[in-house]
């Protein structure tokens, strides 16, 4: 589906300013002070708490196949994750996932 322009023009400035303020927080304003341990613990897991959940539905129920689980996409996702964990290489994982996707789709 296409993005609604009104939504876009609200999201863009707020996301841009919000992200900038996050970056500026301690470096620009709050200075060198220790972060409470609890907060630091929670922040450590923000990215890894959101990104996998964001893609999980797209892996199991891709919009491109009308929500039907697709062996090619499922296999590609598993290979990407596995290669990424084993090799720690982002590019290696992307390539392995891409090759798997096309191999299962087209062979």
């Amino acid at each position, binding site marked *: 589906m296409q*993005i609604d322009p009104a*939504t876009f023009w609200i999201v863009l400035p707020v996301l*841009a300013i919000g992200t*900038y303020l996050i970056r500026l927080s301690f*470096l620009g304003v709050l200075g060198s002070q220790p*972060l409470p341990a609890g907060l630091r613990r929670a922040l450590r897991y923000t990215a890894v*708490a959101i990104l996998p959940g964001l893609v999980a539905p797209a892996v199991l129920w891709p919009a491109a196949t009308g929500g039907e689980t697709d062996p090619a996409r499922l296999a590609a996702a598993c290979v990407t*994750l596995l290669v990424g964990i084993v090799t720690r290489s*982002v590019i290696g994982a992307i390539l392995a996932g891409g090759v798997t996707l096309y191999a299962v789709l087209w062979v």
Partner: protein
Amino acid sequence: MTPIRSPFLRGCLASAPFVIVVIPFALLFGVVATEAGLNLLQVMLFSFSVFAGASQFAAVQLMQDQAPVLVVLATSLAVNLRMVMYSVAMAPHLGAAPFGTRALMAYFLVDQSFAASQLEFERRPDQPLADKVAFFFGTVTPVAPTWFAATFAGAVVGETIPPEYALDFAVPITFLAICAPMLRSVPHVVAAAVSILAALLLAGLPYGTGLLLAAVLAMAAGAGAEVVLSRKGRAHAD
């Protein structure tokens, strides 16, 4: 070979390898955002003003799903909350610079400049402030122009790529590839697993709120696992 003296050049060299990751990521953002209906100006404004790839993808996907503005903003800002840690880590090293310089550095505080600078400042904490600032700006020099140029290229070619290339799946693959190396400890794995499970179970909730809820649960699970493990570790040590 003589070692490179200029801290700026050493910064450039330290973050040069990241270019290999930034190019496909930015290209893909250009393509995906264009296919979601954004025009070239909107795509470029996005990359210039937000300048944080993962949150840009998250925002585009949620806006495409017609999630309400507040959910889009909460989720994509949450993706960027990790940068509070970057800001905290940089403050002792760069905090003495003039405010204008710090304000500019804050704009350029991205995953790559943080990772390269953090490594350098931990290795050589006693170098003068001017050297640290120069090194920091060095680290963004290969990355930032690449990010903007590749976004542009992606937006331009985006409309010409036919659907049988299954490009819809390039985003999940890229995100999984970025996440995989993050799974370096048990709490990280716990957080990721809870995130996936909860996002799937809560996928039926309206307006993308399922993902937001899943993220909170996953974050708590990761932090909780860390506490439990460190207690166990301490008991072991005693």
